């Protein structure tokens, strides 16, 4: 079975390809939905196309499926009518699958299931990465605010942190927000922002 993975994200399509190979599929082609991707797909003449729902090129793909003379057999979106939940899960994950006419449902379903799992896992990783980045950025802001308090108010590091924490608790805000507010205020008072914009 020939499977094309059309995804805006090269990283994610690699993750999907890896999963499909582990599951024993051999003819897998990754095609980014850019430029002349339609011509490339026609040449590959896949049995299954896994398509990224977040790609604006989906309408272009469906048009190709409707008019292409290169494709010997009609190809349509794979929908499991007996299991609408599965289709909903695929849309949720951001995956659609197109399959050639006559391909049996039990042969396609495992491929779509796998793509959905990989898309979801990828989204989870991205979220974790984003959270890690945010946490790191926040720690840097808090450190900067501590340094500022230590130099301007002559506080020890522990006291500077205690001051930030106490203020956050009183105002019902997060420490990072207080630290950011302090740094912004300091910048304004020192006229740094004016300098920045006149540069």
């Amino acid at each position: 079975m020939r499977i094309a993975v059309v995804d805006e994200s090269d990283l994610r399509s690699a993750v999907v390809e890896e999963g499909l190979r582990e599951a024993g599929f051999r003819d897998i082609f990754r095609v980014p939905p850019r430029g002349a991707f339609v011509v490339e797909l026609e040449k590959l003449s896949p049995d299954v196309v896994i398509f990224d729902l977040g790609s604006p090129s989906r309408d272009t793909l469906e048009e190709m499926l409707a008019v292409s003379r290169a494709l010997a057999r009609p190809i349509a979106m794979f929908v499991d009518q007996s299991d609408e939940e599965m289709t909903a899960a695929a849309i949720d994950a951001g995956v659609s699958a197109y399959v050639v006419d006559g391909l049996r449902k039990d042969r396609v379903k495992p491929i779509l299931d796998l793509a959905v799992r990989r898309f979801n896992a990828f989204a989870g990783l991205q979220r974790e990465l984003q959270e890690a980045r945010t946490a790191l950025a926040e720690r840097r802001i808090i450190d900067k605010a501590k340094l500022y308090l230590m130099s301007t108010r002559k506080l020890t590091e522990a006291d500077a942190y205690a001051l930030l924490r106490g203020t956050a608790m009183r105002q019902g805000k997060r420490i990072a927000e207080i630290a950011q507010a302090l740094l912004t205020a300091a910048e304004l008072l020192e006229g740094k922002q004016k300098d920045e914009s006149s540069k």
Partner: protein
Amino acid sequence: MTPIRIAFLPLTDCAILAAAKELGFADKHGLALELVRDVSWATIRDRLVYRQVECAHLLAPLAVAVTLGLSQAPAPLAAPFKLSLNGNAIAFSRSLAEAVGGTPGNRVRQPGRTAQRLADALRRLDRKPVLAVVHRFSSHALMLRYWLSYAGIDPDEDVELRVLPPPFMATALAAGEIDGFSAGEPWNSTAVETGAGEIVALGCRIWESGPEKVLAMREDWAEANAETVDRLLRALDEAASWCDSPENHPKLAQLLSDEAYVGQPAELIERGLSGRIKLTSDGNEVEADNFLLLHRRAANFPWRSQALWIYSQLVRWGFVEPSNQAQTAASGVFRSDIYRRALAGGRTPLPGASLKVEGSLGAEHGVASDKGTLTLGPDRFFDGLVFDPAHVGEYLTQLAR
């Protein structure tokens, strides 16, 4: 608060939905709108058909096509409210515009003559021009086909029609991948602004009163949630009235320029709202007061005759086999009955009829409504043909000549 999820595409004509959510119209009617921004019509269709959203900002012909089963899985849809009337344009690369000739202003003022000039230019060109549309079941595609065939250009033989997402149009035009396109705003203005192309025709000059986007929902959902649908329509009617007032255009353009909506400069968005359209990057401008209608002249009313006109074009281009069953199903997508039920007793006048002869009004015209006279705008086609919804077959014969 009743939550409602509505999928939309980043286009100027998502205006009513954005205003309803952001300016409190939905809130006032006890609705919490969640607007889901998508990037393809296929994904919006799937979200609607597979119940990931309750409603969608949809191309009017696509709503008909999904109901008729022409676009993947069939599902009966109901469109009780139009989100826009008109609002499209056709842009050509500078070299194709030059081949067509004429002045920019005259090109858009005389769409018939421009189509003829294009036909002449095609005989001189050594290859088929590639023209892009946003979807095969879009008002843009139907309008472009109608315009081309007027001059004897066969849209399936003499040019190559391609589907591209609107945000890619200007870049593809600049790169020479396409020679022209038809899209909604602000994407024509983007092509003009970047110098990639020139606007050679306005949708409102091809058909003065063409249905564009609708609010679509699954028919079964609309029936099971009639009271919610009524509140939604009342909120959208108020938002539409606000959006259509010229004094609100700057604020609306600002709102739409946000990344959450269209994400393009407010100045470009305002052109489509005001109807002051720049045709070329060196400043040729036209004013078309009916370039985009969001509320006035019963713009939101889903005339069944307009759904039938769409059906006639789907038959004309071979997308659907003509049958009484298909014709009835297509006409039933536009739910003027729901519109009337929801807005009864409100300020917006309700037309007495659900069908009208399309293309017969040359000027503003008063018709009967529940509040005395309602003013309809001119609705002519540029070729002077008239569509009588009672005689679809005869109309098609006339077009085939």
